[in-house]
């Protein structure tokens, strides 16, 4: 019995020069679930996310989100449909304050509307400010709201990234290694936050190297190696799958 499919990636191919980054990738993401994509470095995980958010156009295949074809859409249009992405290398507004960084995405999705209107943009912002402060303190950044975001530690920047994604209340959140570069304590804190979001029913796709994070969060895991999906299933099935172990260990031996 499968739930409602939110994101459907079908027959996606992508080559960079001579490198086959993605070959014939098919993936279905169920509503409300956390779907982890794991695999060795260079397996094409980030490329796959980039295809979903419109940063990279696939050579072949389509991505549909709630029945809407994302392939060929502008990144901002995809975001407006309710797909938010948390970047691996923090993509923040380094010269602005931490609070501003979180308020900006909130303005984009204000009252569920993305319309451009400079006049509402001149109006009251207390509601958005309060919401941003709440999200920030949730993630343990409450004491840094007025700092310039560019001067934060790398781990804190990652958490800020997460806050920027969460405040939009997206239908689908794409997380690219959300805990990379974090201390153990911060990692656990992020896991807790992500579990709490899951309880709210937000669908997530998560790319992660840290197996502790993957096994604490994922409902389903897909394993990507050399651009192709080699295994898919519940966490316990994946743990015991010999193909997966070979892909990881084989990669290590080379």
């Amino acid at each position, binding site marked *: 019995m499968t739930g409602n499919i939110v994101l459907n990636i079908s027959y996606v191919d992508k080559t960079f020069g001579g490198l086959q980054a993605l070959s014939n990738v098919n993936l279905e993401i169920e509503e409300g679930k956390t779907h982890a994509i794991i695999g060795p470095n260079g397996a094409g995980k980030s490329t796959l996310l980039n295809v979903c958010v419109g940063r990279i156009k696939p050579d072949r295949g389509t991505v549909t989100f709630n029945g809407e074809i994302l392939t060929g859409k502008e990144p901002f249009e995809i*975001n407006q449909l309710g797909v938010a992405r948390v970047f691996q290398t923090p993509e923040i*507004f380094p010269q602005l304050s931490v609070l501003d960084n979180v*308020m900006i*995405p909130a*303005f984009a999705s204000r009252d569920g509307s*993305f319309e451009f209107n*400079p006049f509402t943009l*001149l109006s009251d912002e207390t509601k958005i400010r309060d919401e941003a402060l709440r999200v920030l303190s949730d993630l343990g950044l409450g004491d840094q709201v007025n700092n310039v975001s560019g001067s934060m530690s790398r781990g804190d920047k990652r958490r800020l990234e997460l806050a920027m994604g969460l405040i939009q209340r997206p239908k689908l959140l794409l997380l690219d290694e959300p805990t990379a570069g974090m201390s153990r304590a911060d990692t656990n804190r992020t896991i807790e936050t992500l579990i709490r979001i899951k309880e709210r029913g937000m669908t997530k796709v998560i790319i992660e190297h840290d197996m502790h994070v993957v096994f604490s969060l994922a409902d389903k895991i897909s394993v990507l190696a050399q651009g192709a999906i080699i295994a898919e299933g519940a966490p316990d099935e994946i743990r015991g799958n010999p193909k997966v172990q070979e892909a990881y260990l084989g990669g290590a031996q080379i």
Partner: protein
Amino acid sequence: MKLFKLSAKDAIMMAVFIAVVLTMPIWLKPIGAGYPDLLQKFAIFGLFAIGFNILFGLTGYLSFGHAAFLGVGSYTAVWSFKLVSMSVIPAVIFGTVLAGLFAVVIGYVSLRRTGIYFSILTLAFAQMCYKMAYSVLTPITNGETGLRVLRDDPRVVDAMFGVEQNAVPVGELFGINMQGYPGFYFCAAMLILGFFIALRIFRSPFGMMLTAIKTNQTRMRYTGFNTRPYLLVAFVISGMYAGMAGSLMAVTDPLAGAERMQWTASGEVVLMTILGGVGTLVGPILGAGIIKYFENIFSAINESTLHQAFDFLPDSIDNVVVAIISPFVGDGWHLTLGTLFVVIVIFLPGGLVDGISRIRKRFSRKSHASSTTGASEG
């Protein structure tokens, strides 16, 4: 009204700004700049620079063609004097609005590119306007002679009310001629209005979006923002400021020439903004003031005034000093300005405002340090 609300700090800033601008004739007198012609220029170019800074300072898009809007504003204002009325109000309104329309077209095309390509596109448009003003558009611009107001122009509205004109018509507001000090106060009022609007934009979420575009436009696109309408609105607002400045030039001197659209005029406003401080509220006005001061005061100093100033020195030393300084004054004022510009860009990338805030910080740190040592002694 929410739109007019300012925080306490901004309200004080606004009050200080108004006071400083309106008392300019008094405090600029000792340095020889307290005469209406120059004061008008301070206000007009201050306005031009504030508007330019809304685009360059907030979004980081460097336009090299803002002089086109200055020219459009001037020509429109003069045409308003010729066809509608000698009153300055329609002149300023038409000048601002038409410059805004030009900005919609130029901005729509130019904003498809970023960085140097954007700058080159705006420059191309401005040079096109400049060359056309001399050639195909001569019926509108009167070519090299420049467009001037004549006694027997139609002036529909004035004719309707039977207003009599002098031999040389001048802009007026409720019967007051907009030349000399009244002209300055009118420009000052516009500068204050422009400053207030800029302050509101800087403090609003809209201003925040523009800064965010400057900081990381890619991220904005992954955050659900179509950045182009934001950029276009900023471009048009800044073009309207330039149009208003241009129409004020015509208000204080009802004459418009194509040289106002030349690329040097576009470059000048870039210098003003960088000199004063990009992205700061007061910086561009400061920069505009300094450049206009140099242009008008330094350029007027010649060797004999220098000899007079150093009269107290023995003749031989006097000659040496004058020989050293004279290349920097008179026709050589560009040399002084250039040196100043180089020094500021290298040592104070944030402009003069950055310098002032650094000095202030140093002083407050000193006083802070002395107060803590005082406490430990006590």
